[in-house]
């Protein structure tokens, strides 16, 4: 894992459940137990009603591309070696939108509205990222 140069997320007490699920290749978001409001990224207190009662909901892993950009320039280590890459916002079938990478196709083939599904990327022994690929 020593050669992974991109930034790694720092797991904290509000996000631990999300990251631990990804290691199991499961994608979760949160829903307020009291007011049923979905939320992403994870946090301990529901911003809609300030309840601490939280349910974790497993996402289907299906979604659509809400927006994207083909990145041709990024000097940061880890990224400069993998240009061009697709930075995207994907809207999960369940509603929440998340930043991600679209992989598994030529960058220029990505379109807004394209159907995608989660592809788990085990980048270190502790960290798995949710990326997305076109639904075949």
């Amino acid at each position, binding site marked *: 894992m020593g050669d992974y140069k991109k*930034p790694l997320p720092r797991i904290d007490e509000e996000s631990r459940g999300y990251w631990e699920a990804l290691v199991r290749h499961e994608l979760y978001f949160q829903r307020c137990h009291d007011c049923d409001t979905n939320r992403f990224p994870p946090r301990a207190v529901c911003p809609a009603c300030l309840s601490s009662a939280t349910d974790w909901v497993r996402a289907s892993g299906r979604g659509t591309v*809400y927006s994207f*950009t083909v990145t041709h320039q990024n*000097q*940061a280590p880890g990224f400069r070696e993998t240009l061009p890459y697709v*930075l995207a916002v994907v809207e999960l079938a369940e509603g*929440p939108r998340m*930043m991600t990478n679209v992989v598994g196709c030529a960058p220029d083939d990505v379109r807004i509205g394209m159907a995608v599904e989660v592809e788990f990327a085990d*980048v270190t022994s502790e960290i798995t990222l949710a990326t997305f690929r076109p639904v075949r």
Partner: protein
Amino acid sequence: MSVWGKVAVAGVFEHPTRWAPDKTAYQIHAESARGALADAGLTIADVDGFFTSGVGPIGIMSLAQHLNLRPCHLDSQDIGGSSFVSHCLHAAAAIDAGLCSVALVTYGSTAASERFAIGTGGGFMMSPADNFEAPYGPTIVGSYALVAQRHMHQYGTTSAQLAEIAVTTRRHASLNPAAKYREPITVEDVLASRVISSPLHLLDCCIISDGGGALVLTSAARARDLAKRPALILGAGEAVRHHGIGDRDLLDVAAFQSGPLALARAGVKHADVDLCMVYDSYTITVLATLEGLGFCKPGEGGAFCANGRLAFDGALPTNTDGGGLSSNHPGMRGIFLVIEAVRQLRGERGPVQVADCEVALVHGTGGMLGQRHSGVTMVLGKA
């Protein structure tokens, strides 16, 4: 009793440098403070309110030491490049409330000579939200590009329409001897420049320069007796946009909230605005901001910005100094928006002077448009 119209920008100074390997950022702050105080006809001993940004956590104290200021009111608002517009709003409230009487706002940066890759550096890990974004490589350009791509998808906006903004801004820069890039460009030049982060080309992006500036604010009553014709703060408002609970509409920029607030507070209508100074980190920033401010309907920005409408002699003169796209962008451009607006209201702009300029609207955008960003709108009027 409101604050609006009771506080003025009495002195402004734009540091002429664009490349300063021989200077430090603090030195540019100090030289700019000297320029703005001289412009106002005040001395550093008159300053009792101090505002700055971009100096790091608790850096305002270090800079206060550098300038040997002992202010009774400090504000190091840090919401990105719009911070200096926000300083004006906060200083107006502070001056009107009697918390200070002469506010000094300073900015200085040597981003270019330090070779700081502002827009394409990537890898920021500063807040909990970054844990869910930075691993995927959002550069600053990329964050704005997400908005541009969505705008094109939703409304059919084209790269050529965005390019028109860069072309008009370069025309203004060609008339500004201090601007960093002055050679006129065409829409074709913009489209032929390399793609940095699709759909944004190199010439859709602001430049990187060194530079700085300063403002002096005081009560309208006191400003009347000072050296230059004051610009009155008629109204202002600020806002923030973020991913929320994962429900962000990327086209819902902060200007939709701060713009109507500032115009209503000023009692000014769109038709009254003679000049717009809007943060042009990227061409899309201008387009999205003008829609947010209400100068055109959402989705109409592409056609609205075309055909020279934004030229100094067009229907809505915008960024007449050459903007961040061509004149200067040391990392945080908000202060230059205010400086140019004040100079236009005074009628000091020579070849790019907007005829009969009585009301100027300033809008700063800070942060990353497609992630978390601030918007601060201020309406200035001729005293």
